[in-house]
C-alpha cells in the first residue's frame, strides 16, 4: 500500500464514521427510549447510554449530567402482550409478500412495454401514467373507495394488494430508466435469434436488471410495511390489521405508551435492518459488470 492511498482511505473512513453518527441517531434514539423506564424518561436530560446502574452514578459529562442509565425490558414485555403484534406481523407479511411480487412482475412488464418496445404513442401514454401521480390522492380517495365497495372488496386485503399487480407508476418509471440503458444491440440480436418479446423480457432484460429488481422489491416492501392510511381506510376488522396500525394502537388521548411503542417499533425495524445488511450487495452489483462483459 502506498502512503497517499492509505491516507485517502483513512480520510474516507473518518468522514463515514462522523456521518454515521448523524444517521444512526434516529435508530439509536428509538432503541434507547425503548429501554428507558418511565422515570428515566422524565428527567430533564435523559441519559443516552444503557449500562449497569453502578456506572450510572459515576459517568457524567462536563456539565454534571449523568450519561448512563439502567436499561429495562419492561416495555418489550408489556408492549408485546398489550397488542396482538404477532397476528399483525403475519397480516403484514402477507400484504408485503403479495405487494412485492405483484410490483416486480407487473411494473417490469409495463416498463418493458414503455422502454424497450418502440411504438408510436408510447411516450404520450407514459406521460399520462406519470401524470396520475401528480394529482393529490386526497381528492380521489373517496371515489376509489366507492369502487372497491361496489366490487365487494372492502375489509379484504384486495384493495391493498391488487393495485400492485396493475403496475405502479413509480416503479414502472424506475424499471424503464434502467431498461433504457440496456444496450440495444443485445435485444436486436435476441430478436434475430427468433426470441419472443416475453422471452427477451424474462431471459435477457430481467436477469440483467437484478439490482433494480432488488431495489424495487425493497422499496415496495417498505412501502407496504409502513403503509398506514391504506389499511386504516380499507380494513374494518382488528384481526386483519397490519403492524403500522398496531403501532398506532399505543397512542391515545390520555395514557399513551410511548415506551412500548418504541419497543415495538424497534422490533419492526430490526428484521428489515438484518435483511438489508445481508442483501445490500445485490443493490450495487452493476448489470453490465456482472452479466455481460465478464
Amino acid at each position, binding site marked *: 500500500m502506498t502512503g497517499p492511498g492509505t491516507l485517502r482511505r483513512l480520510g474516507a473512513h473518518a468522514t463515514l464514521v462522523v456521518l454515521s453518527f448523524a444517521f444512526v441517531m434516529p435508530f439509536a434514539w428509538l432503541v434507547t427510549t425503548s429501554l428507558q423506564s*418511565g*422515570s*428515566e*424518561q*422524565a*428527567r*430533564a436530560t435523559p441519559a443516552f447510554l444503557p449500562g449497569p446502574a453502578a456506572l450510572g452514578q459515576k459517568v457524567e459529562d462536563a456539565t454534571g449530567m449523568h450519561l448512563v442509565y439502567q436499561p429495562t425490558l419492561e416495555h418489550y414485555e408489556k408492549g408485546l402482550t*398489550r*397488542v396482538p403484534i404477532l397476528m399483525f406481523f*403475519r397480516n403484514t*407479511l*402477507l400484504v408485503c*409478500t*403479495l405487494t*412485492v*411480487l405483484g410490483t416486480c*412482475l407487473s411494473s417490469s412488464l409495463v416498463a418493458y412495454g414503455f422502454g424497450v418496445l418502440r411504438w408510436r404513442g408510447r411516450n404520450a401514454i407514459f406521460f399520462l401514467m406519470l401524470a396520475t401521480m401528480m394529482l393529490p390522492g386526497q381528492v380521489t*380517495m*373517496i371515489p376509489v*373507495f*366507492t369502487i372497491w*365497495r361496489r366490487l365487494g372488496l*372492502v*375489509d379484504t386485503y384486495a384493495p391493498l394488494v391488487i393495485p400492485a399487480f396493475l403496475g405502479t407508476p413509480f416503479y414502472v418509471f424506475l424499471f424503464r430508466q434502467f431498461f433504457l440503458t440496456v444496450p440495444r444491440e443485445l435485444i436486436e440480436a435476441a430478436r434475430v435469434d427468433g426470441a419472443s418479446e416475453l422471452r427477451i423480457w*424474462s*431471459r*435477457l432484460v*430481467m*436477469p*440483467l436488471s*437484478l439490482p433494480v*429488481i432488488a431495489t424495487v422489491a425493497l422499496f415496495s416492501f417498505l412501502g407496504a410495511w409502513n403503509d*398506514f*392510511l391504506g389499511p*386504516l*381506510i380499507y380494513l*374494518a*376488522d*382488528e*384481526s386483519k*390489521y397490519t403492524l403500522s*396500525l398496531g403501532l*398506532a*394502537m*399505543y*397512542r*391515545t*388521548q*390520555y*395514557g*399513551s*405508551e*410511548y415506551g*412500548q411503542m418504541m419497543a415495538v417499533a424497534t422490533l419492526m425495524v430490526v428484521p428489515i435492518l438484518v435483511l438489508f445488511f445481508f442483501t445490500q450487495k445485490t443493490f450495487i452489483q452493476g448489470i453490465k459488470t*456482472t*452479466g455481460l462483459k465478464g
Partner: protein
Amino acid sequence: MPRQSATARIISLSLVGVAVATVLLLVRPPDLSLQGRRLVVTIWHPWGGATLETFQNSVNVFEKSHPDLACKTLYVPNDLSASQKFFTSVIGDCAPDVIFVDGPQVAEWAHRGLLLPLDDLLAAEGVDVAGLKNDFFAPCWEQGLYRGKVYAITYSADPNFCFVWNKKMIRQAIERGEIPAGALDVDKPPATLAQLDRWNALVTRRVKTATGDRLERIGLVPWGVYGNANSIFTWGWAFGGQFYDPATGKVTADDPRIVEALEWMVRHAREYDYERISNLASTFQSEARNPFFLGQQMLNLAHMSMIADIDRFASEGEGKLEYGRDYGVCPIPQGPGGLNAAAWVGGWTMAIPATITDPARRRAALRYILWNCRQPEGTTLAARTNRCFPAWKDAPFFPEAAKDPRLAQFIDILRSSRHQRPVMPAQAFYMDQLGRAVDKAIRGELTPAQALGRASRATQERLDEVLAEQGGQP
C-alpha cells in the same frame, strides 16, 4: 449460463412467495367469538395505549350484562385519518353502529347529516329526553345538541383547567437567593391575574451564555395551554368574553373582553420574549416530559390527566414530587373584577351514524351508548378508560374520585363550569382561525384587535356559507 440461473432464481422465489402467501391466507382461524349472539354492535373507538385494556374490559362487562348483544370493536387513531375512515365508510354505506365524536365536532357533523338524531330512539326506549337533560352537566349536554335535537351523548367530561405550581422548585430558588425571601408565599398561590403576573416575574430566571441569554426557569405560558386555540378560549372566558352567540348566529371573537385577554397574553410574550419561552415549553414532547414536572416551568395550567402523569413519571429520582408538600393544585386565578369564569368542559361524545337504518341495530347501539354514559357500572368503567369524569351528575364515580383532593378540585371545576366550545357547524374552522390569531398577535404581526377581528370575520363568512347550503338532513 448465468442468465438461465438468474431467471430460475426469480421464478423459484416467486413460487416460494405465492406458497407463503397461500399458507398465510389459509391458516387464518375463523372468528368464533361472535357466534350464538343475536346481534353484533360495531364500535369504532380511539382508546389505545394504557386505555386499551380498560376499554376492552368495559366491553366484556357490557356483553355479560347484555347476553343478546355482542360487540365488535375496532381501534381508530385519534387524528384526522379517523375522519377520513369515517367519512369514506358513511359514503360507502359500511359505517359502524357506534362512533366516538369529539364534542366540538358534533354540530358540524350533525349539520352535514352524518349523525342520527336520537330523540325518537330515546323516546322509544322509554327515556324522557327533557329529564335526561337535567341528568347531565349543562355544557356536556349542550355540546351533543344541534338545532334542538340530540345527536350525541357525552361520554367523557373533561374539565379545564386547574392552576398548578411547583412549590419544591420555588422553595429551592428562594433558598439559593434567586427569588428574594418573603417576596412570595409558596403556600398561597396567586388569586388574581395581577398576582399571577407578579409570580411570573419572580420565578422566571435567565442565564447568560456565549450565545445570548437562555431562560432556565419560566412561569406560566399563557398561550401554552394545550395549543393556541384552547389558550384563548380559557383566557377569553376568564376575562368574561363570549365567543359565539347561538341566538343570532354571530361569531364574536372580537369581543372586547377577548381582545383584552389576548392583549394580556401579548404583554407576556413581549416581556419574556415569545421565542425563548416557546423554546422551553416545546420540551414538552410526551406525557413523560412535561416541563412542569421536569422542574423547568414553575407555574402552569393543568389538565386532569397531568395528575396521573405526575404520579407515574415524577414519582422517583430527581423529579420526585409529593402533592401538598412539593406542588399544589387550585383554581385558575380570578380574571378582572374578581370574575371566576375561566372553567370550561370538553370531552368525547358517542353517536350513531345516519346511515344505520336497521331499527334493531339502532336500538342496540343506543343501549350501548346509554350504558356507557348514564349507568352506574358503565360510567365508572368509561371514566377509567377515558381518564376524565362521567358527564352524568349522579355517577358513582364522583364520590370515589373525590377522595383524591387533587381530583376533587377538578370536580369543582366541572360543577362550576358554564362553557363548552361554541356549538356551530364551522367549529373546526373557528378553532384554527383562533389559533392563527393568537400566533399572529404574540409574534407582533398584528394587534390583538386586528387578529381577532380577522378571525371573527373569516369564521362568520364560512359559517354563513355553511348555513346557506341547502340545510343539513333533518
